[in-house]
């Protein structure tokens, strides 16, 4: 069976025959469709108070859109996520690079990243809300705390592990330290940084939920908790679906960016 496998692989690489790849995509779509179907079937045999199917969820979604509640909740949660995430990128990437370049910086920051990274953000939720109140800023901080460490650590590890031979090439052509940083370290670490952003985005979404759970009047997370308290299960399902889709979209988008930027890594994985 080995030879036929090789043929498939070489076809995929060459791009001449898209057949096999399309077949696998089809299989994935089929899997999702079956899953939704199973969801619908399960919903028929369970209490509507605790479990609703895709149809009811869809109806609730349309209803929420019509009233305009969902848009304002999405806007607030989106704002919290964007601010917090942007802040963690602006601080995490430079700090990670600084740690990779300077041993001293790494020695100072390493214990803190280890301690804070292993502290569950869930435990910080009440404290942050206590400090910053139930407005947007407490959520921004929780998103920031969640996304910062995956971004920082991935940047650090990525920049640290840039092939020493690449640095030798830069040296051999007389690159200055700044040129070496710009032409070797950054592009070499970029695939890792993108992975860090992907993990950070997912942690950031978690931060939104945690923050809104511990104290807020708006946002999609808040909508979920409020709806659960009044047994509006369809609304809960809408909220969960929104978070799931947000995580999926962020993850897929960043994976696509990674594939586009670093095709040689994909090749090495095969």
């Amino acid at each position, binding site marked *: 069976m080995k030879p036929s496998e090789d043929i498939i692989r070489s076809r995929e690489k060459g791009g001449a025959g898209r057949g096999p790849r399309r077949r696998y995509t089809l299989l994935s779509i089929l899997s999702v469709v079956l899953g939704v179907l199973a969801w619908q079937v399960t919903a028929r045999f369970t209490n509507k108070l605790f479990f609703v199917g895709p149809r009811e969820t869809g109806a609730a979604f349309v209803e929420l859109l019509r009233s305009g509640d969902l848009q304002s909740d999405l806007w607030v949660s989106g704002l919290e996520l964007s601010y917090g995430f942007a802040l963690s990128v602006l601080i995490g990437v430079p700090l990670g690079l600084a740690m990779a370049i300077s041993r001293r910086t790494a020695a100072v920051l390493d214990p803190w990243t280890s301690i804070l990274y292993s502290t569950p953000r869930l435990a910080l939720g009440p404290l942050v809300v206590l400090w910053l109140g139930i407005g947007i800023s407490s959520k921004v901080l929780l998103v920031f705390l969640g996304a910062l460490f995956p971004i920082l650590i991935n940047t650090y590890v990525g920049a640290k592990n840039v092939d020493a031979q690449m640095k030798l090439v830069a040296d051999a052509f*007389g690159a200055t330290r700044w040129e070496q940083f710009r032409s070797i370290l950054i592009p070499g670490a970029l695939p890792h940084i993108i992975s860090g952003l992907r993990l950070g985005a997912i942690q950031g979404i978690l931060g939104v939920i945690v923050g809104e759970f511990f104290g807020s009047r708006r946002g999609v997370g808040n909508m979920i908790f409020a709806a659960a308290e009044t047994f509006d299960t369809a609304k809960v399902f809408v909220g969960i679906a929104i978070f799931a889709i947000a995580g999926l979209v962020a993850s897929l988008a960043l994976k696509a960016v990674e594939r586009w930027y670093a095709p040689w890594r994909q090749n090495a994985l095969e």
Partner: protein
Amino acid sequence: MEAERVGVAHMTNAPSVEVDGVWKIYQSTTHREPLVALQDINVNIQGGRFISIIGPSGCGKSTLLYLIHGLIPPTRGVVRMGAKAVQHPRDTADLTRAMVFQDSMLLPWKTVSGNIAYGLEVGPRGRKTVPHGEIAKRVEHCLELTGLNGFERYYPYELSGGMRQRVNLARALATHPDVLLMDEPFSALDAQTRELMQEELLRICGAESRTVIFITHDLEEALFLSEVILVMSSRPGRLIEKFENPLPRSRDLSIKASNDFIKLKRYLWNLLEVEVRKSIAES
């Protein structure tokens, strides 16, 4: 014809390379005794010549090349290029030497063109002189010279080993080096590709006068390519022979089958055999 060629050689601008009493000693962290990689190397390489350095593996020939390029400093002694002491490439205002590496060491995120241009975009030379239009022109020329036309936009991972080494060579040539340092560039290639690359290297280097220092452990390769062959001992690396290659300068691959060639190879092997046996016994 021959006289004319010699005349050109005399007028060359390519600097001589002088290795003067160079030692390289590594202070080992695990062993008490320091490791002597190079022991009192003295050699004067005339400008514009093609030199090969051969020796058993681990004899320090790559170390010597890195020393000549200034990437690592000698423990004792000095390397001079055209009368000036060699410094780290980063500290060399007018960098007129370039390195072709053993593994191609191309930047995976750059295309073939991007990799060839790299040496022109960084470093003292790029900072001082080469304007953007000139970079594009040089890249074009080097693509042509090394037979890479049509591969401009390929990424290294899409290329064969032979193609990658062409890019490796083109990247060095694009900086217009007067001294070209080559560290076993064909050793990872299959036998047929290697032969063709050797022939192409002669063609490319024959067009312009420059000093070439070529590391190899392949006696045939050294004989085929070079005018002078330096033979090194097993560790600690010493120079045991400076061998003037009597073969005519214009050669093609068929010369490898000639009686003279085979005799010379035999001669070199006799010089080297003891050293190779020693280095095998050590490891």
